[in-house]
């Protein structure tokens, strides 16, 4: 009988593999990726298209997101109401999600209902109606959401940070959903043009995951999408460069704030970055887990915050690297100082071997926990399509993670984090926080009235 004083030792590990993905093609050449053998009788069918916000034309920022929303607004055959009822009468959930690099349109339902759901999914993608009045409703919803973002402290800080980190006019300098001004210029005709020019079988794939019969699933896929034709141009490359290369501080004044929303960071890396695995380990050590340096310091030692996180947001282009947290007004300067100290410490000295072991062991162990649902598996496969990852990517994922050493992480930190270029944004009460920030060696401080911080164009 083991004692209680030491943690128990683990029993032998059982192997786990990413589920086998069958790769097929429809009659029109469209790629299909299938995972069968999921034990519960549920299925997710997802059309993934390389048509994200990066493809929205200048002056129409937010078009890809809005077009995605409005796919639910009816097809040339079904009204918005008919479409919703046809899917919800069989218990299906459905929706589109648009990011910088892709639009995904998905339906999840009981496997027995896939033959009913698949044709509707295909119709949403191939022949959306974008009827004028219906489209205007989705546009008004997005504009109202943009207005909400200006008063939500976390969104306000994130949008301001993107704006001050990236050079003006570049892809990532504005909110992914666009601004009130740019959304206001979009009409149904823009959405029709966007879908005609960007949605096509050659620039995407169909992903199906669930308790399904492969042959039957392929047959419904062929019936829905196999005769979809139309060549589309590959999406343009994102344009992203830093706004400046020095430390700088921007305070977005929010008079009613009892807490400061903080973001510290700079331009990051693209998804294709060579040392990607070292980078995710680096992020776990810095601020990507409960036991990270930042969280143990700012939350568990100082009690400054409910939580602090760091993240790299790799996209086809270099997304932002950022540390984000929310702290009481009175400790804003102290918290920002500690964030800088932790970042500098990790860049100067690298992680300890034990930290890297803990992080790689975490990533390897948590892998199957994030592949429990058909939706999670489908999203991973969609990501492989969007970022051109090799077919064995997830099969070799855990080996690649375990190969990461402290030296790799130290090098990744020096290469990808540049303390001299950190841009700090605080959304909070300027009267309280500016004096605290001016005492730190983190760059010149400028203050923006909330109203002025709204993004142009």
């Amino acid at each position, binding site marked *: 009988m083991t004692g209680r004083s030491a943690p128990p030792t683990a029993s032998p590990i059982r192997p786990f593999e990413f589920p086998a993905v069958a790769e097929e093609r429809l009659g029109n050449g469209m790629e299909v990726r299938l995972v069968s053998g999921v034990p519960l009788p549920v299925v997710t069918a997802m059309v993934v298209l390389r048509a994200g916000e990066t493809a929205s034309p200048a002056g129409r920022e937010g078009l890809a997101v809005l077009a995605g929303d409005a796919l639910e607004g009816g097809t040339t055959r079904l009204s918005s109401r008919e479409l919703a009822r046809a899917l919800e009468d069989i218990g299906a959930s459905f929706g589109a999600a648009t990011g910088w690099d892709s639009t995904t349109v998905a339906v999840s339902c009981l496997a027995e209902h896939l033959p009913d759901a698949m044709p509707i999914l295909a119709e949403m993608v191939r022949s959306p109606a974008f009827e004028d009045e219906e489209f205007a409703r989705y546009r008004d919803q997005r504009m*109202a959401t943009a207005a909400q973002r200006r008063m939500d402290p976390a969104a306000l800080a994130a949008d301001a940070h993107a704006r001050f980190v990236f050079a003006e006019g570049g892809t990532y300098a504005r909110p992914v959903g666009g601004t009130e001004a740019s959304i206001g210029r979009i009409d149904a005709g823009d959405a029709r043009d966007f879908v005609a020019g960007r949605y096509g079988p050659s620039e995407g794939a169909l992903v199906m995951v669930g308790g399904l019969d492969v042959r039957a699933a392929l047959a419904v896929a062929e019936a829905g999408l196999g005769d979809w034709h139309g060549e589309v141009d590959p999406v343009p490359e994102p344009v992203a460069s830093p706004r400046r290369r020095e430390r700088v501080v*921007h305070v977005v004044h929010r008079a009613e704030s009892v807490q400061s929303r903080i973001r510290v960071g700079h331009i990051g890396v693209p998804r294709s970055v060579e040392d990607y695995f070292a980078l995710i380990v680096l992020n776990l050590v810095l601020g990507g887990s409960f036991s990270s340096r930042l969280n143990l310091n700012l939350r568990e030692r100082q009690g400054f915050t409910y939580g602090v996180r760091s993240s790299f947001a790799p996209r086809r282009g270099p997304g932002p690297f950022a540390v984000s947290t929310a702290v*009481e007004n009175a400790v804003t300067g102290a918290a920002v100082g500690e964030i800088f100290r932790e970042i500098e410490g990790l860049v100067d000295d690298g992680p300890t071997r034990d930290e890297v072991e803990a992080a790689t062991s975490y990533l390897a162990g948590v892998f199957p926990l994030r592949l429990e649902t058909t939706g999670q598996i489908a999203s991973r496969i969609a990501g492989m399509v969007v970022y051109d990852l090799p077919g064995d990517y997830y099969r070799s994922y855990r080996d690649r993670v375990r190969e990461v050493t402290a030296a790799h992480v130290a090098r990744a930190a020096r290469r990808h984090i540049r303390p001299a270029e950190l841009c700090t944004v605080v959304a909070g009460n300027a009267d309280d926080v500016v004096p605290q920030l001016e005492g730190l060696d983190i760059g010149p401080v400028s203050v923006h009235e909330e109203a002025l911080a709204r993004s142009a164009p």
Partner: protein
Amino acid sequence: MLDIQQHVLDNGLRVVLAPDRTTPVVGVNLWYGVGSRNEPEGRTGFAHIFEHMMFQGSAHVPTNGHFHHIERVGGSANATTWFDRTNYYATVPSHNLDLALWLESDRMGWMLPAMTAEKLENQRQVVMNERRQRYDNQPYGDWDERVQSLLFPGDHPYHHTVIGSMEDIAAATLDDIHDFFATYYLPNNAVLSVCGDCDPDHALDRVRHYFEAIPPGATPPPLPGTTEIPLSTGETVRSDVHAAVPLPRVYMAARVPPFTTEAFYAGEVVSNVIGRGRSSRLYDRLVRSRVAKSASCHILPLTTGATMFLVVATGFPDTRAEELEAAVSGELDAVGDLTEAEVARAVIGSETRTLRALQRLETRADLLSMYATLFNDARRLNEDLSRLRQVTLNEAREWCGAYLHAGNRAVVRYLPDDASRARPAGTAGPGASA
């Protein structure tokens, strides 16, 4: 159908085992029968602070050792405090089942030796910042404080929120921690579920090994205040909040039969018909016609005397709150004419969502603990879907008539103050700094 086995240890700990060998992952979930409803006046928010303290170490686990150990093996862990219970859960690669059981048993049996005033002060600050982040600094953040205090009488356990007031959070002492632990954190006031990749006999053996030595305690005291209340507010009660919010929003709540009653199933069907999905009445009639930007309906799974039925509707910048409220009331007034097709859609929607949610071991283990705690029978998870299917059109209509009338409503309206009304976007750049 899940394979569900139930046991009770000599110290009163109820154990639920639900083996599923599909993937090498196991979920461990504990429900303690204590939540914000057990808090007396002056100690609101305490159950939640206590939950934070459960991660501050125990006799054999150092401060933050819980997360450290779980993350180190690639697991995920957390805890939540709710009105009727506090849950603690971890999902780990299955060869680390012993680790999860050791950690949970150590804080169930040996938490107090690790408690210090310094740790309490640290977590008090963390929780105060949680409150600022989620309530005081967030548009609409205090909606539940406002709705609960209108919907439930002052001496009812649901009158106050889980987060509690800043004053009460500030007042918590180390003595409170000791008393609370001795009163509620007992094997005879808890359910432990182990779900996923395990051999049930072996798992039960390991559970006994780690938990059997923990002594039981006295049955926890009755809830403070008055728990039995009429399923009606008597009239429409309301409050208007002029605040820094971008869009007008209406919360409309009703007191309805609690989760543990047969009538709850009809309530769930009605809630789906009114406000779940794009075929629901609120979406179809309010969102499609651009009266609301968004609108949804919820029924909370609360157990004490009554639960909350809730509609949330958000307008556009140019929406008048009066119109938005009238539109929502109109739907509640009229929902008694719901149809067979709407009921069928509501049921299949719930069934499919439940099945999809059960794919996650964390959810499965939590539901098992819930049914074992509230119904003393975890197998109820397997039966609940068929119970929902038995709700008839007449039952649903009668439910609407009994609970969704104007004499049973609490309304909180958020109105953008003058400075906050969404205005057209400015064009000034970041160079325009003061």
